């Protein structure tokens, strides 16, 4: 087994002045190298918190996360985090934005500049390298945000509803785009989403969570043809069957 990420009995309790809320009950699963995992669940079930815990931004109340066998204690830049909004810095050019993770780590050599240049060229951002984010379309900005997370060569990508801020049309094509880039770069990805169709169209496995305090309800192997793009997968005949099944799980069995 080539496990890159292990969640070992993760639990989380939120503390507020008026009391404590158990958000995550106990969650364990592992992700293999090169896998694309989607996590879905009812709103407020702590999906985003799971990613924050994996990234080391949030300390779990119990259990531990291991990346490549090493326990996560604090964020060290070994993972790439992509958020709902692109969060590109408006005062930096696209190239400077993409270079940011390298700069934070103090990696300056020519090999790194080369890496940034080749990524920009490979994924059609070369001609925009001197542009500012405000001059790019929403789809292009999200692509630049992905390239930024790739520049420091993380092993693991965490995607927190990265398409939800886009309109439907753009969303479908950016999803295709991002999926293709992640597969080309042979990255492992964990996607959190509230969109069942999105999960089915990209994931190798789907983790379904219960409502708060969340536990794992089911982990599904999605057995569609993995060579298809997310858009093509949506046309697949299994697609609606999967949709119905997951919809049922989220809406009825979760009660």
């Amino acid at each position, binding site marked *: 087994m080539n496990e890159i990420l292990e969640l070992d009995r993760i639990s989380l309790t939120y503390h507020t002045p008026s009391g404590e809320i158990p958000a995550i009950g106990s969650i364990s699963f592992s992700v293999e190298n090169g896998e694309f995992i989607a996590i879905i669940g009812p709103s407020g079930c702590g999906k985003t918190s799971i990613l924050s815990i994996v990234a080391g*931004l949030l300390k779990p109340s119990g259990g531990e996360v291991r990346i490549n066998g090493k326990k996560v204690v604090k964020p060290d830049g*070994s*993972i790439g*985090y992509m958020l709902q909004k692109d*969060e590109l810095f*408006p*005062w930096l050019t696209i190239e400077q934005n993409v270079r*940011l993770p390298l700069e934070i780590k103090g990696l300056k050599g020519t090999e790194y500049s080369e890496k940034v240049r080749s990524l920009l060229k490979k994924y059609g951002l070369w001609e925009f390298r001197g542009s500012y984010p*405000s001059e790019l379309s929403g789809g292009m900005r999200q692509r630049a945000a992905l390239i930024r997370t790739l520049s420091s060569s993380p092993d693991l990508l965490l995607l927190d509803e990265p398409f939800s801020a886009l309109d439907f049309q753009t969303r479908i094509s950016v999803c295709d785009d991002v999926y293709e880039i992640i597969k080309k770069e042979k990255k492992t990805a964990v996607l959190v989403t509230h969109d069942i169709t999105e999960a089915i169209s990209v994931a190798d496995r789907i983790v379904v969570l219960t409502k708060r305090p969340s536990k794992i309800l089911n982990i599904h192997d999605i057995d569609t043809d993995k060579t298809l793009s997310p858009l093509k997968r949506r046309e697949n005949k299994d697609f609606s069957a999967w949709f119905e099944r997951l919809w049922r799980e989220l809406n009825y069995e979760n009660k």
Partner: protein
Amino acid sequence: MKTNEKYSKEHLLYVNNRRKNKFFIIAMRFLVLAAFISLWEILSAVGAIDSFLMSSPSRIIKTVKNLVVTGNLWMHVGTTLYETVVGFLIATALGTAIAVAFWWSENLRKIFEPYVIVLNSLPKIALGPIIIVWFGSGTKSIVFMTVIITLIVTIITMQNAFLSCGKGKIMLMKSMGANKFQILSKLILPHSFPSFISCLKINVGMAWIGSIMGEYLTSKQGIGYLIVYGGQVFKLDLVMASTVILCVLAGGMYALVALLEKKTTRKRER
């Protein structure tokens, strides 16, 4: 802009109208000033208004000329300009530094919050007598007055700018493994730069209030001194002339900040 492209008539008309309108606005601005000055001059010349009380443009020019000839003008201008600029720079630098400290430590900010609020509401002129006792009558007191008037506004403006930075961007920086100093230098400070420029613009006005008010309280030279002195000996020509000089100086300082803004903000965020 593409120059070889042929534009439609409608577009050319639009561009032309825009240019015309811009020219019209600027021309009208000068016209308003010219009309005001001429009306003032004519009314005082025919005796419709008392030029002893209201002065007149020609008498203002004569007064300024006199000040130049006696060599006193530059001393007065220099004194006030020095007090204003030094106070402005100290208050801006110190205020920004305090705002950074408040960003760095949330506890520090919370502890000092009520003090900042009280100091902000306090009319700083009330401290006048204390300042004179502490710093004597002269430049030092006036610079101090300028600093306290400008400082609190700077702290509040910059602190709000720092805190307005999106949580998502901070989270992103943390996930990249950035430390607090990197978050400050690579995210918070550049994010707050536009606010810093507008803070400078506010501070120009505040610093002038501080220096002139300081000179009203205690001074032997400066534009504020000339205005007070002119008022006391009923030389309204001197009061008006000094006010005009003040307008030019304050406008000039504002224009410098606006120029700085233009130089530093390229096509980035609009």
